[in-house]
């Protein structure tokens, strides 16, 4: 055994002694069952959003969290949870008017916001119970598990043109991202009126992958599209054992492209994960009142579709060639 390993072992002992062995980083989210039923087959949600803090500008663009998004933190009565709203491709000229609106709304103004709802344990912190008093956030990225991300409409201005590849952004490759998503185990319990999801911290926001439609698209409750798709690599290999639900926000470029596709067609896309509340609802129906452990069900919000050979990330192309098979709507 090398010395460095012995050193590491000693450090682990120290850390294990000092820290919580029951493992934390886990966070509980309590959602109202009626809320779950309302959003589970919707891609987006409309809220009256109090903009407590808006970032001065979009994030830099490189990889990981430097994704070019614009962050805003605030509160929405109908959500009742710490809330962060994110606009993708915020630095693009098409989003200039929205950037002006965010500046004007910053500091507590209330605006109408629509966009993909997103439950994901990326920035968890303590137990978050829907409907309990939400403290005024102190910055643009407070502890939160609920987001509206990406936005489709902000203060009356459409943001659907932001649903395009992020120029110069290196998304996670499909193998890395999906292997992480598949390994998240959550503890779930429902009562008559609420559902609790206790999950470890999750990350890997943006994943670039090729999806193969396992069924034709079906409409969501809000006019978007829901598609069951396999995540494939090199045209043949399936990266996850079963199809996952892919969701397309209404009137966005990805939704328009997938509308013409059919079972078996492929699409090269950029997506972000969110908890699949439709599956959560089905699972709690199978285990009423019981606490149970399960793989955290997730689905992908499709943010962008890459055109032939137009992968944004050279890293992803190098690892997982997609052969330029992007969406081609059938005539």
């Amino acid at each position: 055994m090398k010395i460095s390993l012995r050193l590491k072992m000693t450090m682990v002992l120290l850390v294990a002694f000092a820290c919580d062995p029951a493992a934390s980083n886990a966070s509980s989210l309590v959602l109202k069952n009626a809320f779950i039923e309302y959003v589970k087959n919707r891609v987006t949600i409309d809220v009256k959003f109090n903009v407590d803090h808006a970032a001065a500008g979009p994030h830099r663009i490189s990889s990981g969290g430097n994704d070019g998004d614009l962050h805003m933190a605030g509160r929405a009565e109908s959500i009742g949870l710490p809330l962060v709203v994110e606009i993708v491709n915020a630095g693009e000229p098409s989003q200039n008017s929205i950037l002006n609106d965010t500046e004007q709304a910053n500091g507590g103004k209330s605006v109408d916001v629509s966009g993909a709802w997103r439950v994901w344990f990326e920035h968890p912190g303590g137990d978050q119970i829907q409907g309990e008093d939400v403290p005024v956030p102190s910055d643009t990225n407070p502890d939160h598990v609920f987001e509206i991300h990406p936005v489709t409409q902000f203060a009356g201005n459409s943001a659907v043109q932001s649903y395009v590849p992020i120029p110069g952004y290196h998304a996670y490759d499909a193998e890395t991202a999906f292997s992480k998503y598949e390994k998240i185990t959550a503890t779930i319990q429902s009562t008559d009126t609420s559902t609790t999801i206790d999950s470890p911290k999750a990350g890997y926001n943006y994943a670039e992958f090729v999806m193969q439609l396992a069924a034709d698209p079906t409409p969501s409750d809000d006019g978007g599209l829901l598609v069951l798709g396999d995540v494939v690599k090199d045209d043949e290999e399936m990266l996850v054992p079963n199809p996952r639900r892919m969701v397309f926000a209404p009137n966005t470029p990805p939704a328009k492209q997938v509308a013409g596709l059919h079972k078996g067609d492929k699409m090269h896309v950029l997506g972000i994960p969110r908890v699949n509340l439709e599956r959560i609802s089905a699972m709690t129906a199978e285990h009423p009142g019981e606490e149970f452990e399960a793989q955290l069900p997730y689905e992908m919000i499709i943010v962008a579709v890459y055109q032939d050979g137009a992968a944004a990330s050279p890293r992803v192309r190098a690892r997982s060639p997609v052969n330029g098979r992007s969406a081609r709507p059938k005539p």
Partner: protein
Amino acid sequence: MFNSTILDVAIGLMFVYLVLALMCTTVNEWIAGCLKTRARTLEEGLRGLLNAPPDGVYTVREEDLKDPASLILKLQTGKDELTTYIRNTLTIGDKAKLDAFRSGDDVQPLMGPLVGALNRLIGDQELQAAKLFPNVSNIAQQVENTKGNSQKSKAMNYRLLKEAYPNEISSFSDGFYSHPLIKGLSSKAGRHPSYVPARTFALAVMDIVTKDKQGPINFPDLLQGIRNLPDSDVKKSLLALLQNTDQKIETAQARIEGWFNDSMDRVSGWFKRKTQVVTIIVALIIAVFTNADTLHISNRLWSSPTLRTELVDKAKARDQLKPLITAEYPHPNDSAAEKPSSVNPPNEDQENRKLARNLPAQLGDLIGWSQDFQKFHQFEQATRTKGVNHPFAVFSYAFLLWVVWLLGQHFVGWALTTIAVSLGAPFWFDTLNRFMNLRSSGKSPDEDPKGAEKKITS
């Protein structure tokens, strides 16, 4: 009287063991992750199940030659360095047989020489891999990494050979590990997973045996796929599993999952045996590092009712820990968020939960070195009074005396703690729960209403 001092001391000790065993589990898991023990044991089990050489053997067997005729034809016509190398390891007679081979001829006479030649390549530690496999990326680095390690060298040669002849040399287990469903379970590319769900195992196996079949498969497809496999234990096992079924694909899948689960019970046993020594060593390190001396802890608990009560209360909080917070809402049919009418457990229990989670901090000064360090300073002073003044000499002599004193004081206690901690957290969790139940089934005289009544009436 169940609620006795002895019972409380036992509960306190169990609580200490539980905390230390949790630490031991954390370290053990980390070591198993670093050494990939779990993944290796699983691989050994899976390769045994799927009839392929276990790790470390790296040998091509006759049954691994999926298409020997194709390999022979490649060796006849190839002009590259690899072909030349393999041909040169054949005897003149075998080389003549190889050159005389024509498509459709019986391959059996050439199987032995072929397998021998391939295994000679695998075992060649001086293999000029960069010359033989020029198209492999990072080949120079790979060769450098295996220098001086025969096992690594064999593993690399075995892999390179299989990559060079992917359609000719194969084994069922290699196909299994390279299946996307299984590869997707690995944390990093090139690593094997440390856990394979039974369902994924069954799906991968079924997909491999029916790889020539496009679209959904049914029971006859699966059966035919298995029959097409080369004769091997895995073929016999799969055929045996599918005997006397209702000819449904779901039943076949369930049988394969059951086969996997049965085997994994055995693999779990291997893993436990493999990690037992590590567990004991880690438990000993933890016992010494935290100075957790069973005898000392028992004495302190016995002599201090306050400490005893405090620890029992903490154990109770741990025992009654509600793992999940839940809520109820007054208007369940309204989708908009509203203030919950109740939150369970209530907020004060949340604090208890946080406390209970931060277990090591709760052991207070029951464990630790602060008192024994004072003894070290006493030895230092005693050494100085004997006329030793050089700081290093003082430290060394005092340290030696201190170590001897520590062993005398704590050796038996540390040994007992080590044995207890190595039993594992689940054991102490269950035992603690049983003792807590036992404690709550009896009532102390102060809590006994009849006892109180007696006091009043008398």
